[in-house]
């Protein structure tokens, strides 16, 4: 076998590997792929993503350079010295990826990630706005407790798609002033939203890409997601957990108002049962 004749192929291979790595890394950096960041913790999530892009991008470049250097150097049939290394040398070398990866990976989780994780899953401030979002095939039912500040009783048996989508129990006085909406969630800017998550049927996942919010909605369990909208405007709600034929069109809207706008809007609403 003559390894010298394969030089053109070696050149092509080196170019191919370089091209792929450059395209991959450049592609990530080419444009801001992420949607607008419109919640307080979104900055933190994006920070983690930027950190990972920088560190893993660097590792990928180093790895690729080593790979193409060896392929180039040792792919053309030139005589080389003995490749043998002692077990001890190999052990010492393994410390490089061990320490490097451990540092980069765990720093990402603990130093960059954990504070943001705590921001999302930590204590909810007292003045948070309580609202409930219920997933069902294939829409989001939004409920506010109303002026009394308490959610009324609901019963799955009372659920009626058009007339009583939340299954409100009219025998409960607390239920009378509950506000109910379909596929639209109104929130004031700058105030913590404490969203109670429920499902009426299968799994869903309450997702607002602009808020970097994704929280599964699990039947039988009352879940929670907490975030602070920072920019007034309209954002899409998506479902991220396969929930059936209409999964792809289970979209809703979040309307983020200024505080004054929101107060005016609330004042105009009446309870679903009233």
């Amino acid at each position: 076998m003559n390894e010298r004749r394969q030089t053109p192929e070696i050149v092509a291979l080196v170019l191919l590997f370089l091209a792929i790595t450059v395209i991959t890394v450049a592609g990530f950096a080419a444009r801001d792929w992420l949607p607008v960041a419109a919640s307080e913790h979104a900055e933190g999530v994006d920070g983690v993503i930027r950190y990972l892009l920088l560190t893993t991008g660097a590792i990928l470049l180093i790895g690729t350079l080593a790979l193409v250097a060896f392929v180039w150097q040792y792919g053309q049939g030139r005589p080389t010295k003995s490749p043998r290394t002692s077990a001890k040398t190999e052990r010492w070398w393994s410390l490089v990826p061990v320490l490097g990866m451990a540092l980069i990976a765990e720093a990402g989780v603990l130093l960059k990630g954990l504070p943001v994780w705590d921001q999302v899953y930590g204590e909810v401030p007292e003045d948070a706005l309580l609202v409930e979002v219920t997933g069902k095939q294939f829409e989001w039912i939004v409920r506010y407790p109303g002026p009394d500040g308490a959610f009324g009783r609901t019963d799955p048996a009372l659920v009626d798609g058009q007339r009583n989508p939340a299954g409100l129990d009219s025998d409960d006085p607390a239920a009378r002033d509950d506000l109910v909406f379909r596929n639209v969630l109104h929130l004031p800017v700058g105030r913590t939203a404490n969203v109670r998550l429920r499902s009426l049927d299968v799994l869903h996942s309450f997702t607002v890409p602009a808020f970097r919010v994704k929280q599964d909605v699990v039947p039988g369990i009352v879940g929670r997601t907490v975030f602070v909208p920072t920019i007034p405007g309209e954002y899409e709600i998506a479902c991220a957990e396969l929930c059936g034929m209409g999964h792809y069109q289970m979209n809703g809207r979040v309307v983020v108002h200024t505080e004054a706008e929101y107060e005016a809007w609330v004042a105009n609403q009446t309870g679903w049962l009233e």
Partner: protein
Amino acid sequence: MSATHGPQGFWTRYVFSTDHKTIGKQYLITAIVMALFGVAWSILIRLQLAWPDATWPLLGGLMPNLYESGVLLPERYLSLVTMHGTIMIFFVISFALLSGFGNFIIPLHIGARDMAYPVLNMLSYWTIVPACFLMLGSFFVPDGAAGGGWTVYPPLSALPEALPGSGLGQTLWLLAMALFIVSFTMGSLNFITTIFNCRTKGMHMRRMPLTVWTLLVSSILAIIAFPALTAAAIMLLFDRHGGTSFFLPEGMVLGGQVLAYEGGTPLLFQHLFWFLGHPEVYVLALPALGIAFDVSATFGRRPVFGYRTSVWALIVIAFLSMIVWGHHMFTSGMNPYLGEYFSIVTVAITVPFAVLGMNLIASLWRSRIRLTSAMLFALGLIAAIGIGGLGGLWLGTATSDMYLHDSYFVVGHFHFMIGTVTGFGIFAATYYWFPKMFGRFMSEKLGKLHFWLTLLPLFLGFVAMHYLGLAGHLRRVYDPTAYEYAVPTQGLNVFITFALFIAAAAQLVFLFNFFWSLRRGRRAEENPWEGATLEWTAPSPAPHLNWDVLPVVYRGPYEYRVEGRPDGYWPQTEPLAVAATPVGAREG
């Protein structure tokens, strides 16, 4: 015992054979057939994702049960996604890499005449044959094949009223998977027993080729992990047909009716599923890495760098893989402290993987590369681990997963790890061992063409999926343009579709090469690649029971480039002359 006295009849020799090599080939051919379906479905999926509004009268004519007036129905799209995943993971990659090459190479690598339990081995193969028919047949039942995703999360998969595919199709899926698990468990048990008990004289554990090590670790993982899915599948069958509520809580409303279940939770299923599911991806990926080590040692003409650190890395990976399953459930509503735990241990897995990656690259240092088709795919595999493995860090970090979970980033990531890495491992193994399997070479020209046509479009297509994920595209979505925020990046979907079509078309070169070479390939001698491991001391193709006289092993598997040797290497079987023991891959 003479090697020529194998069974001579057609049925015992080619069909109901207990010969590990025949069974390995049967698995490989079955995997190729199943891959035709799996890849064909991915083409339909990509068509839908690129042009969600288009109609395809021709496809409608060909497949009236999938298309209605030329439009792919949403529930059929979900069936395609589910079945593509299921078939590719369990019925293509597991079959080819584990059952196929595992069966073929383990006895040949360790110097055994056959598997420890040849009849059990035959039984393993014949158990998956009905499983294949059940899976494929489920497309033709009235409401179509299972559509709840390859993860088949209940309640969607438990309730026929929730999704058309959750009817008979889902039952058939569960039965087929049950057969698959039974078969795979028998196979893994056989691998473990064979590797522990049937090694020839002198074949210490530390002289085994790394392919055998990876297959051993994978088999142990499979034995530990698969029972969890078996339990989950049985419980799900009971929920579906026995009126139990393992995974179903009370108060679910479907079709205007309150369902009469109570007391269960869907999260239990997720835990059971991922207790299998996460180790399973390493079960698939590790043998591909082992093959890359073996192929690059033979065609790099040098000992593997870090044989022992690699074995340690494999053991650490195996241990960690059993305690990280929750990283698939960061957004499931699990306790946030638990989520952080899973995140910390998950990203720790990148550490042993980085050791393997470095060892693979360092194994090229001072090598003498022979750029065969097998070597090209091994090198491509190394490049794929880089992108695939590092992308895993983004998903294992809980905070970034909060955004990336269930997005196309995930899809891109696992198509690198268990699509490209395993796929390239299968191709490298096929070009490498084809002469030993069939006594003929595959065409090197076509093999190289296959590589050059495959790599770039495949990488670009799967890398672009990562960008889509960053832009917020979610997986299992029938029409990506249904979300306004996703519309600006829809062009990328078209690009991915074109790129992957080129990559898929390139596989026709492989198919042609494979079947053409079976009959027309150049005849191969015993040791065509000048390999040092045991399989190259058996005739090509290896006869029944492999050797007339079992080989005796005197050294490690990678004694290449030894000073003073006429061919520059020591076969494992050559008794030691007084010459100094080379350092490096030496044992003990």
